[in-house]
């Protein structure tokens, strides 16, 4: 079953849901399906229980941080300058990102199919970071959603036991976010290089070192 077929199957059975196929241009060509969070739980339970799809196994859940990024694209535009038509470079700046993304890899053991890749996006990276939890549907998502909550800060509504998994209670940061700044413990670096060298230099000048 192709992803397009699954998409039309979902659209026929879950009214009002917004789906988008995110193409993957790499040789693996693992295209994924972007689901809107409002209908995500209905879509997921259809994918698990629907007779044709039967995705009964969730193998992996992962998170991605997309910080706000300004992309400028150059296009050649014909313009009339001083009465003469010329090719002029026009720079268009667009903003991408600014959200957290969660990716589910789903398989069907019964139909020997998969993976079907689902994506969900939060509204932003600050406080509107709620997404529905799929743990009630696939138990295997339990620890992985906790890990994403811990390391990315996505809050999964409906998760039975949403606590930090790797870091301790009382830790406030989310270490896998792109803008995470790790604590300044660069006192001793035997062979510093690249990023570590930069941090070690900063540390030593702050401490008034060598």
């Amino acid at each position, binding site marked *: 079953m192709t992803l397009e077929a699954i998409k039309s199957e979902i659209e026929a059975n879950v009214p009002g849901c917004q789906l988008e196929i995110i193409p993957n241009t790499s040789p693996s060509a693992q295209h994924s399906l972007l689901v809107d969070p409002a209908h995500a739980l209905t879509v997921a339970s259809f994918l698990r229980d629907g007779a044709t799809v039967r995705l009964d196994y969730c193998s992996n859940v992962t998170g991605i941080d997309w910080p706000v990024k300004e992309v400028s694209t150059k296009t050649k535009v014909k313009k009339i300058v001083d009465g003469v038509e010329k090719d002029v470079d026009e720079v268009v700046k667009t903003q991408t990102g600014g959200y957290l993304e969660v990716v589910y890899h789903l398989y069907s053991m019964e139909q020997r199919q998969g993976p079907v890749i689902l994506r969900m996006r939060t509204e932003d990276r600050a406080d509107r970071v709620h997404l529905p939890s799929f743990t009630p549907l696939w138990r295997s998502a339990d620890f992985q959603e906790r890990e994403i909550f811990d390391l990315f800060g996505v809050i999964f509504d409906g998760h039975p036991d949403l606590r930090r998994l790797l870091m301790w209670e009382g830790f406030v940061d989310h270490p896998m976010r792109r803008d995470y700044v790790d604590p300044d413990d660069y006192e001793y670096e035997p062979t510093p290089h*690249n990023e570590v060298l930069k941090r070690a230099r900063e540390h030593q000048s702050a401490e008034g070192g060598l």
Partner: protein
Amino acid sequence: MDEQLKSELSRQGVVATSLQELYNWGRKSSLWPLNFGLACCAIEMIATTMARYDLARFGAEVFRPSPRQADLMIVAGTVTKKMAPQVVRLYNQMPEPKYVISMGACAISGGPFKQGYNVLKGIDRYIPVDVYIPGCPPRPEALIDAFLMLQKKIDEQYLTGPNRPRHLNADMPSEFVVPEFGEHDLEPTQNRDVWKAPLVNISIAGKNDSGSD
């Protein structure tokens, strides 16, 4: 006592010794490690105690499941920041005299995970370490070598004088600060009485070393 006279006497069947030698011999020959491992180094530690390498030959046959009965802590594996307070607390609960072997790259410095967000950059930031074993993971022979090195270290200790070991000196601490979980890192990030950062001149690091500069 003169060494020559002692060996002469032992050939005649007379054993002469000093209290210090007897005391050190007793301590070094019954080092009981704490039964505790953190990562893959622990697998090598287990292999060391099994029949092929047989650490029991050196008097360390019983791994104690309680810190109250152990003399030696083998920190075998990556110490995460979440685990570090428990490791220090276990060390504090061991009675004196107590020793620490820091086994493997991670326990020494954080190893391949040194820049990780949850990895302690060496257990020696919180507790005093007697022997370091490099390796990832070190082979059982390396652990046995470290063990023999520790035995040699114990054998050379004096019972009196300014260089006497910590457990015979009432002024020296036997318990160390247990770090607390902070909002961004452990607090304190190191015990300054135990660990001082080695001086590394980083101003020369990162330069072009091809000679052309």
